[in-house]
């Protein structure tokens, strides 16, 4: 009863925040709930099947796909719009108390807390890579926190872990109930040394496997994704279709199919549901600026830039890059040099954003012809009446996804 009153009060606070345009309401609602009932997430998770999704890249998309797949079987709540800290998780659980499933995206550092509070049925560990090193922890620190958090899991919890990523493997490998997945990702720029002992990690020449003299090695995956075909235990075969472009989206769709099958959803139902999603929280949505029709792509760190550049290379010839260095983007732009921009060669490239000069020097040395302009409107003026991709860092992307142009 008290919980219901608190939730009603918190939702009113969230509503006020939306009306006064001081916020989206999600954070306010969650903060009020957690302030008045610190253990609310534990109470709100009881009796439900909770799935936690975490990793450096792909959280929102994978969460949205799992939400879609689970919804074919039963009422499901989720926070796939990216509110993945404590209040966002509390709000998602409070907003839909009738839901029997909860698909919760969780920030990497919040995962230990979320595991304790929600007692999940499934945890999906996507990947761990360098990301905004000026404000976030080095990869190894995050992996160690995950490893410690998994120790206390009940045996009924399944961890769906990415065997291609040595840090995910190291974090999950002690857990008794791991389902290993491979999407065919090769190499890892942060895993030159062994997460277990610190010695140089041995990678096969093709980057598909790794091992160390200490005994640490890539586990054999039960679920294997190759060229869109997913194969699993008991000769299961699934053809994965994604409405979202790119190789990473196919992997995330495969993870969603596996996760929902663990919770009783047939693969045919989940496949059909997942294929219908073509955009998550503005990713791959379109925005017209001047006479240019932009497709919006989010890129946050070297791994996601590489993926986005590969996806975009089969898109329109024109491309605009918008790079900022606000707190949420990471204030250090050194990562630009971790990315090979040569997939842009031969395309019409326009650069803008607060740190356009950093990008321009990078592209100059990478021998990519480009033009630098002051803002997106100038980029549109230059590109004219055409289809174009717009690849943006975090703060620029979220502004543009709300339709706010400069």
């Amino acid at each position, binding site marked *: 009863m008290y919980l219901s009153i608190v939730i009603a009060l918190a939702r009113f606070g969230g509503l006020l925040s939306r009306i006064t345009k001081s916020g989206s309401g999600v954070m306010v609602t969650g903060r009020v709930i957690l302030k008045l009932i610190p253990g609310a997430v534990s109470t709100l998770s009881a009796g439900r099947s909770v799935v936690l999704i975490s990793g450096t890249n792909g959280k929102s998309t994978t969460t949205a796909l799992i939400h879609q797949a689970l919804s074919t079987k039963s009422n499901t709540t989720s926070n796939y719009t990216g509110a993945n800290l404590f209040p966002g998780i509390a709000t998602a659980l409070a907003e839909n108390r009738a839901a029997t499933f909860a698909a919760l995206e969780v920030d990497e550092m919040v995962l230990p807390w979320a595991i304790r509070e929600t007692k999940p049925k499934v945890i999906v560990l996507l990947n761990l890579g*360098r990301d905004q*090193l*000026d*404000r976030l922890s*080095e*990869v*190894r620190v995050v992996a160690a926190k995950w490893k410690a958090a998994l120790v206390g899991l009940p045996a009924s919890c399944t961890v769906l872990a990415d065997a291609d990523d040595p840090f995910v493997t190291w974090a999950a490998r002690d857990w008794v109930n791991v389902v290993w997945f491979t999407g065919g990702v090769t190499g890892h*720029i*942060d895993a*030159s*040394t062994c997460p277990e002992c*610190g*010695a*140089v990690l041995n990678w096969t020449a093709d980057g598909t496997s790794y091992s160390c003299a200490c005994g640490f090695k890539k586990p054999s995956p039960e679920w294997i994704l190759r060229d869109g075909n997913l194969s699993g235990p008991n000769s299961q075969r699934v053809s994965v279709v994604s409405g979202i472009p790119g190789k990473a989206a196919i992997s995330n769709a495969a993870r969603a199919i596996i996760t929902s099958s663990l919770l009783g959803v047939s693969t045919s139902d989940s496949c059909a549901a997942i294929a219908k999603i073509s955009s998550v929280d503005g990713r791959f949505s379109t925005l017209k600026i001047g006479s240019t029709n932009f497709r919006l792509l989010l890129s946050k760190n070297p791994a996601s830039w590489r993926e986005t550049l590969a996806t975009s290379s089969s898109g329109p010839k024109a491309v605009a890059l918008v790079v900022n260095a606000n707190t949420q983007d990471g*204030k*250090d*732009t*050194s*990562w*630009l*040099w*971790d990315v090979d921009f040569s997939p842009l060669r031969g395309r019409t490239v326009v650069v803008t954003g607060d740190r356009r*000069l*950093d990008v*321009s*020097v*990078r592209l*100059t*040395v*990478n021998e990519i012809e480009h033009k*630098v302009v002051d803002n997106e409107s100038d980029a549109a003026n230059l590109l004219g009446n055409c289809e174009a991709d717009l690849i943006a860092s975090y703060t620029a992307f979220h502004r543009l996804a709300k339709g706010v142009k400069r």
Partner: protein
Amino acid sequence: MTFSIVHLLPELLGTYGDQGNVEILSWRLKERSIDHEVIVVHAGDKVPTKADLYLLGGGEDDAQIAAAEILNHGRALAKAHDGGAHFFAVCAGFQLLGSTFPASGERTVEGLGIVAVETISATPRSVGELISTPTIDVPMLTGFENHGGQTRFLENLQPLGNVSVGIGNSESSKVDGVVTDRVVATYMHGPAFARNPELADWILARKLGELAPINAPIFTALHDERIKNVK
């Protein structure tokens, strides 16, 4: 004669984009039609001792220790240094060139002993923009530092710059990096040569003599924008 650049252990010493320094050097030499080669040394490869310029970048703790073990083996870099080779080192690479640097669990790891500096751990980490007035004939220096070390000179050495924004070697010394007759080291990522092209040319000129100017105003624009917006 081919100018040879050795890029040391990019998989271990490449956390903060410092491998960009190698690309920038190569680009600047190419623009001037100066014949050059880049030799990338991976873990397990033999380290050449006769190259002209050796580059070391930043890295995380385990990687830095692994790099120290590899590079101390056979003392190839000390031989190269004694033979007249030049060095440019950033962050973990800077610490590696010294006598000791810290590791987790209050351990101390032996460095390469090429420069008379030692590094101890420091909290909180030094993270943010770093601007210094150079002690050599180049414009103001700009970079981004991110390290948990405090580096001290063990003898009377010339710093690379006097810090006006950020920390550099240590809060108390108010200097960044070091310059010797054959070594330039710094805590500036960015990478350093992207933001400070004249530092790249200054280091090249020590080996190659006077260099022809390059028409690349975008480098100067980035340098000036960083100095203007960070001050």
